[in-house]
């Protein structure tokens, strides 16, 4: 059975699922992540599923469980990179993935975690946009 690697980057655990997972692999990932969160004390988990070509009810349930378990362990989970065709399917399947936060890509996922941790957007983002258009001023 293959195993999905969990990488630690700063305060974030990054998981990029690059294989067509067996159910057992998904369950293993769920366990690995819980242990890694406790071992590292990370407060954010990003799961990149841009390489997955389907999300069926099993994968959906695993993602939801990971998010719930992480929350109990004081870590926020963001699922990033779901493909359009993949995103249309769970809707029809009746899978709503409640409690899972999502972002378009890893960058936005990191931003989202930073935002929810500090309660504000990262400060440097503010300056870049400021000069671009005088009609739209960021609120202080």
């Amino acid at each position, binding site marked *: 059975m293959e195993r999905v690697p969990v990488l630690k980057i700063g305060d974030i655990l990054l998981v990029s699922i690059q294989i067509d997972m067996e159910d057992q692999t998904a369950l293993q990932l769920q366990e690995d992540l819980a242990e890694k969160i406790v071992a590292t004390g990370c407060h954010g988990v990003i799961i990149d599923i841009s390489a997955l070509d389907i999300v069926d009810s099993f994968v959906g349930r695993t993602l939801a469980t990971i998010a719930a378990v992480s929350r109990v362990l004081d870590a926020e989970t963001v699922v990033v990179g779901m493909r*359009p065709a993949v995103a249309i399917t769970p809707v029809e399947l009746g899978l709503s993935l409640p409690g899972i936060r999502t*972002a378009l890509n890893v*960058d936005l996922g990191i931003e989202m975690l930073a935002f929810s941790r500090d309660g504000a957007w990262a400060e440097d983002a503010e300056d870049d946009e400021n000069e671009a258009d005088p009609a*739209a001023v960021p609120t202080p």
Partner: protein
Amino acid sequence: MALSPEESGRLADLLKEHADGLVGRWAELVGVTLQGRMTRPELERQTRELQRGFQQAFAAGARDLADEEAAELRAQLGELSATRARQGFSANETAVSVFAFKQVLLGILGDAADVQTLRDYVAFTAFVDQAALLTFDTFVRVREALIADQAEQLLELSTPVVKLWEGVVAVPLVGTLDSARAQVVMERLLQTLVDTGSPYAIIDITGVPAVDTQVAQHILKTVVAARLMGADCVISGIRPQIAQTIVALGIEFGDIATKASLADALRYVLGKNSYKVVVAKRTER
């Protein structure tokens, strides 16, 4: 019912012998059905080609329209039918042009009252019926291809997904949305979100005259799918009648943001991004 070899031989001779009279009379008959929508010389050219086609097929020994010997005739009939379909003639008018051949031949047979002539004629009419059916078939197929082409063109010219701001894309929907088009548009929108990395999308339906349950479902599904991908959708430009319909149909828009106009939607999205839209101070000129 296939012709006997003798029958096709005799028919070939008959068609050859009376070629000119036949073409003239045939063109005249077809002209009546088509009511002057084609010129006489054009009609005569067409019927002459057909007459020659039939004659050659019989001379080559064709006993059935499906035979190898009638391949050229089949191609001719197909071509004629396809042309007529594109010119906007009805299937009826096209088939009648072929059926008229029977009447013409009857005229040529004259007063001959022997059994053999009768047999020939019956066999011949069966052959012509096949030919007319073939034109009918081709006609329908050409028209279907035309319709499919047009539908595709419509889809293509349908809807651009435009970038409104850094991180904000919009789809201005214009015209009637059927289920197929709604699906294409929505798939394109989702793809654009990924390609541009935009976390916000505005679906503007100002130009949509009516929304039925299916279309509303498509829009809702798109919004949910976009959320799964990590993007938020705002629906703008809902007209009063459409709002009425949505409520009457019992469609739940739930917690999806709806705004009256595209401008409101943009302001709302910018606000969520911690922007505030204010009037710029004018400098004296």
